């Protein structure tokens, strides 16, 4: 008898130990969120349940203007950008007294996971931000995103190339607000000191790298642990070698493949840069968000960095003095390649989408119009450091006007592979490019791995 209970007890004990692990995991993930994020989640979860009970009693909510409506709205932008959204919300709530918008900002890296979890349950947001592309398509395919093609939104005021990023099978599933251009930022003081000029061609860039190396300055700062910063080089090299069709043909399976010359050569060029010591040491172990690469730039230890327009935001936030000596140039032309040097790499961020089956479609669409109207767009372009995807806005910010000019003159715009491709292929792209930087794989092997996974998915 006692033995039996002992065995039972030990079983329960082991069970509770295992159960402890579940608990602690939950705690750990909460810890990752900085600050108030957790509290805000709770806030947003509560109104959702309110909505549910409302609709049980009253079905035609949208026509009844006295009806209290709550809309949940999720995005991933911190700082000034979030303030711009908040001001749009204030304007909208003033015009529509009966509607409350519950905004929730979730940090970038965690955002995707949070949306996935919410979509699998019933508490997904009415309106949410994404980067368009393959990630959004995954939700569209699962019937979770509302078709906005025939909704009460004037689609003509969006810049076509950005809007297309959330068009699947000729239907529109999201409307863009910002375009983040990827380009080199550099330290003009260092360039002056060593008599360097903005490179026109890739040869120029290589010379700059050699000069800087001779003077014990890290030529290019790179924090490649999250893998996307290095992937920018793959995007640009593949484009400069094979033109914009290289990616499109391989991705759409229209006569191209991932082991085409363009991608193999791009891998070789990446490894050539690594061998030239173009980057700060240990770049593959540095996380971008923690800021060690930006620190190298701010402290004059490194001279250049290929980054998104978000870098402008970072500088203003972290070390405003640097803005005075900051310069920008586009990824240089590659003589051996066929790519047009005006081709840009850029990301659409954010793109707004509406949940399929939202309780108050008219209210959400109406808010979406406020969130993408000229006033919001103007605020956004003045304060975000990003190009805006809405036409008819005056650009005053010096950096944004340069970026806007590039976008207007660009022969084509390449969106990041990892956001365009389906997630599983995107992962192979990121991993192989990372391994190319780490010199643990040959360009040929990387290209073949990519092609093999593409064929498996097909």
């Amino acid at each position: 008898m006692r033995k039996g209970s002992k065995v039972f007890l030990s079983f329960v004990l082991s069970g509770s130990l295992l159960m402890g692990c579940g608990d602690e995991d939950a705690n750990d993930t909460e810890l990752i969120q900085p600050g108030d994020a957790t509290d805000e989640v709770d806030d947003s979860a509560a109104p959702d349940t309110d909505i549910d009970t409302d609709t049980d009693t009253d079905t035609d909510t949208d026509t009844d203007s006295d009806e209290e409506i709550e809309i949940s709205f999720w995005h991933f932008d911190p700082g000034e950008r979030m303030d711009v959204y908040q001001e749009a919300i204030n304007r909208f709530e003033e015009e529509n007294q009966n509607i409350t918008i519950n905004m929730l900002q979730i940090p970038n890296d965690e955002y995707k996971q949070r949306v996935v979890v919410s979509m699998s349950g019933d508490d997904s947001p009415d309106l949410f931000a994404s980067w368009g592309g393959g990630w959004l398509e995954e939700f569209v395919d699962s019937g979770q995103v509302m078709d906005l093609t025939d909704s009460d939104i004037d689609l003509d005021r969006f810049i076509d190339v950005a809007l297309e990023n959330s068009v699947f099978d000729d239907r529109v599933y999201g409307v863009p607000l910002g375009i983040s251009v990827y380009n080199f930022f550099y330290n003009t003081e260092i360039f002056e000191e060593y008599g360097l000029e903005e490179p026109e061609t890739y040869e120029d860039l290589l010379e700059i790298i050699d000069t800087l190396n001779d003077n014990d300055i890290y030529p290019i700062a790179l924090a490649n642990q999250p893998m996307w910063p290095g992937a920018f080089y793959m995007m640009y090299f593949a484009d400069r070698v094979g033109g914009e069709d290289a990616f499109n043909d391989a991705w759409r399976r229209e006569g191209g493949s991932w082991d085409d010359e363009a991608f193999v050569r791009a891998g070789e060029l990446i490894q050539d840069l690594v061998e030239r010591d173009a980057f700060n040491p240990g770049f593959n172990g540095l996380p971008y968000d923690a800021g060690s690469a930006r620190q190298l730039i701010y402290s004059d230890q490194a001279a250049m960095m290929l980054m998104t327009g978000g870098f402008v935001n970072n500088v203003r936030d972290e070390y405003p003095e640097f803005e005075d000596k900051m310069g920008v140039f586009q990824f240089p032309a590659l003589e051996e390649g066929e790519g047009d040097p005006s081709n840009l790499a850029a990301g659409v961020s954010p793109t707004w989408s509406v949940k399929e089956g939202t309780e108050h479609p008219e209210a959400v669409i109406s808010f979406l119009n406020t969130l993408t109207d000229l006033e919001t767009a103007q605020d956004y372009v003045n304060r975000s450091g990003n190009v805006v995807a809405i036409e008819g806005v005056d650009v005053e910010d010096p950096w944004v006007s340069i970026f806007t000019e590039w976008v207007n003159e660009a022969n084509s715009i390449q969106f990041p592979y990892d956001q365009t491709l389906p997630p599983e292929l995107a992962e192979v792209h990121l991993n192989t490019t990372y391994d190319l930087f780490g010199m643990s794989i040959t360009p040929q092997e990387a290209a073949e791995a990519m092609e093999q996974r593409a064929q498996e998915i097909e």
Partner: protein
Amino acid sequence: MAQQADVLTEAKLQKKKDRNNTRLTIAIFLLPAILTYLVFILYPIFDTFVISLYRWNGISPTRTFVGLDNYTTLLQESRFWFAFRNNMYVVLLSIFVQIPLGLVMALVLFSKIKGKKILNVLFFLPYLMSTVAVGLLWIFMYDPVNGPVNRLFNLFGMQSVHWLAGGTSSLIAILIVIAWQFAPFYMILFRAAMVGIPEEHYESAEIDGASETQKFFYITLPSIMPTIVSSSILAVVGSLKTFAIFYVMTGGGSGISTDILGTFMYRQAFINFNMGYSSAIAAIMFIVALISVIIIQLIDYRRRNK
């Protein structure tokens, strides 16, 4: 006579009633805990097993039943075994480095040296910090250019190591951090156990002329054996479910060289949209943890019966 019997049965009945009442009270008090346990622990575990039998992307309203397909694919995938191997390194580290280290630290604090209080705080401090903070702290410690660890290396004329950039070195780097962070936890357990050892044992050992080493092996170690066993269980389970430190420091990165089951599962579920597949990983983690705990319990059970 008859009356007496009646009184007796009545008393018996009353007793029985009382007992039933007590049982009811106990049950009512236990109910909240049991309900929480059922709803938030047992049901999710059960549901994980159910989901693992489906192909499901985690967001779609429909899912396809595929039986044990997820498991057969998983067991054939080299990346799973790679992640599993890394987990095993963490298990070995916890048992053969952290627990002995914790024991040594406890012994130091138990000996008659000066500055014990300061040492106590110093030893225990790492465990008090949140794992994410520890991860970020060590990212800066390991920084290839400005990090103190490499500065120290350079001071002694050694080459800088790109700790978190290479496959093996990043794994070693993280294992060091784990040992640093969790050894104090075992130290506290051992200290508590050592405090409970009666002083008379040591006194009589001293009278018998036992050396310090003998005292340790014949008194201290056997007395804290139960603690060592429960520490091992905690170490094994904790190592299998470890996630946060890897997620923060490398995200399973350097390619996949520091992938562990936790990060592998996370990626499958939330990046690659394979909720069914990742549930299979979770299920296997659960089974492995359960089996290890049962084995340790059995070993301990036999040891106690000897």
